[in-house]
């Protein structure tokens, strides 16, 4: 069981909603993934309507919603989006995303830390999306974030765990859950993230833009479970030289 703030999750696969061709395809994939935490962009929600194509079906599905602040370019805009989400969706959970760079969608560390401080003080459960910066993750933990979400590689790039050495440090040092978010493009990469000791992964593009999202969701579900089990079982160490399965000095022990 994964615990974030006051909530427990059986599934360690978190999913997104942003790139599916239609609602039915999205719901089928999310259902198959068995994901219990689904993120959605507040900028996409039309709260003036009684029925929103994206929000209403997700609410009916019963998964925990993690509204995100995608589109926000400053702390001020992100705080506004979080407050809007709390007011309209009745949740104090927020995935804090601030990226002023529309080309690579790199998170702004300075604005993110500022917004996280304010939102934590206001009682939000904050999960910030950040670069794989171990010091920043520690600072975010200090201001009260419920988890950190460092990137594996640029959003939507499917480049996998390009930041692996830094993710390892973050995982080693964190006292709060570490959710690897962005860039995971293949089930094998999700599996690797879990083998490293990540508490969860968030996957969107790799599922939504695949030729068969529902099938791909199954693959990710299994990969995350396998990776987690491997981590718990304990991976063997990696060495540059061979290790004899029958050591030459074993006779000394008998």
């Amino acid at each position, binding site marked *: 069981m994964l615990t974030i703030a006051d909530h427990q999750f059986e599934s360690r696969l978190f999913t997104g909603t*942003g*790139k*599916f*061709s*239609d609602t039915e395809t999205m719901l089928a994939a999310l259902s198959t993934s068995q994901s219990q935490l689904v993120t959605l*962009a*507040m*900028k*996409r*929600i*039309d709260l003036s309507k009684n029925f929103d194509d994206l929000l209403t079906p997700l609410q009916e599905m019963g998964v925990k919603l993690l509204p995100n602040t995608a*589109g*926000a*370019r400053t702390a001020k*805009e992100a705080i*506004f*989006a979080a407050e*809007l989400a709390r007011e309209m969706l009745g949740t104090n959970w927020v995935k804090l995303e601030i990226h*002023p*760079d*529309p*080309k690579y969608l790199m998170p702004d560390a300075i604005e993110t830390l500022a917004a996280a401080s304010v939102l934590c003080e206001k009682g939000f459960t904050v999960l910030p999306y950040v670069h794989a910066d171990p010091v920043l993750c520690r600072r975010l933990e200090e201001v009260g974030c419920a988890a950190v979400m460092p990137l594996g590689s640029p959003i*939507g790039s*499917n480049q996998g765990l390009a930041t692996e050495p830094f993710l390892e440090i973050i995982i080693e040092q964190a006292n709060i859950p570490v959710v690897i978010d962005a860039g995971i493009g293949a089930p094998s990469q999700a599996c690797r993230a879990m083998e490293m000791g990540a508490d969860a992964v968030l996957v969107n*593009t790799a599922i*939504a*833009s695949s030729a068969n999202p529902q099938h791909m969701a199954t693959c990710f579900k299994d990969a995350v479970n396998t990776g987690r089990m491997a981590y718990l079982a304990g991976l063997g160490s990696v060495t540059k030289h061979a290790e004899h399965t029958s050591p030459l000095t074993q006779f000394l022990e008998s």
Partner: protein
Amino acid sequence: MSFSDYFKQLDLDKLSMQLYSCTANDVERALAAPQRDIDHLMALLSPAASAYLEQMAQQAYQITRQRFGANIGMYLPLYLSNLCANECDYCGFSMSNKLKRKTLSDDELIAEISIIKQRGFDSILLVSGEHETKVGIDYFSHVLPIVKQHFSYVAIEVQPLKTEEYQALVALGLDAVMVYQETYQPITYAKHHTRGKKQDFVYRLTTPERVASAGVDKIGLGVLLGLDDWRLDALLMGYHLSYLERRFWRSRYSISLPRLRPCTGGVTPKVELTDKGLVQMICAFRLFNAQLEISLSTREEPSFRNNLLPLGVTNISAGSSTEPGGYQNPNTQLDQFEISDERSASEMANTMRTIGLNPVWKDWEKAWC
């Protein structure tokens, strides 16, 4: 260095020669490149690339789906006025055209907004002729707060303004500015713009820099395809885009690729851009720039539009009127140009769904201004 200074250093004749001298090897290198630069764009726009259209289309489709998913943003133009103080021989609003002139009153504006909202739109493009005394910053400052009450995302396509004027409009809720150079070839530009402030090629060329400096979210570039050699114009727009992205990294960018359409008193295209050429151009820009937004208007025929949608397009209009007051009172002969795709927004959305695309009506927060 402003782009106009940079532009002066470009030898257009030499660029044109390089463009037309690109070989199959150049195109193959561009197709294989993990990161593409302006030389790759040149190869992809060249005649040599026309033999690689299917490969370009396949890659363009993949890149677009990965970056934007299946989403296509829906927007609609709202024409505020057809007053114009320019003489442009390709435009129905041209000052010498014997056309009934009209600028929307508040009541007329609200009536138009009401109809557009009923159709489901949340992203609007305010369009006017270029008449800075009667339809200038005072008028826009008055209109914008009214419009912003109803739409999350508000873009304008009006005459070039000053930086401080753009700043004032951003404070009132402006999100995007479309400012099309029409052609990047100065001699051709002078030939088609014979009276009014639009004659100033350089002032128009530097407008996106003023827009970006004012903190506008999105800047739209464009050329009117048919005024001159589209390959060279597209390449020069690529140079402009690269310059802007490097210097103003916080802004988003879009391009529009309108082909010259019949209009009152309008010219016939000097260089015809075929359907095949337009496909090549869309794919070339998508391969060149994965995050670039590409808009497709109702100038194109329905079946052709359907086929273009998966190739890199990210935003479309549907059910458009190109005349002030045209949603409430259509066919009053005040329009800027003829449209080719007359399908309603809901028809268009249904068509998109049948080909696996997702019409997105809202994708912005109104309060972010």
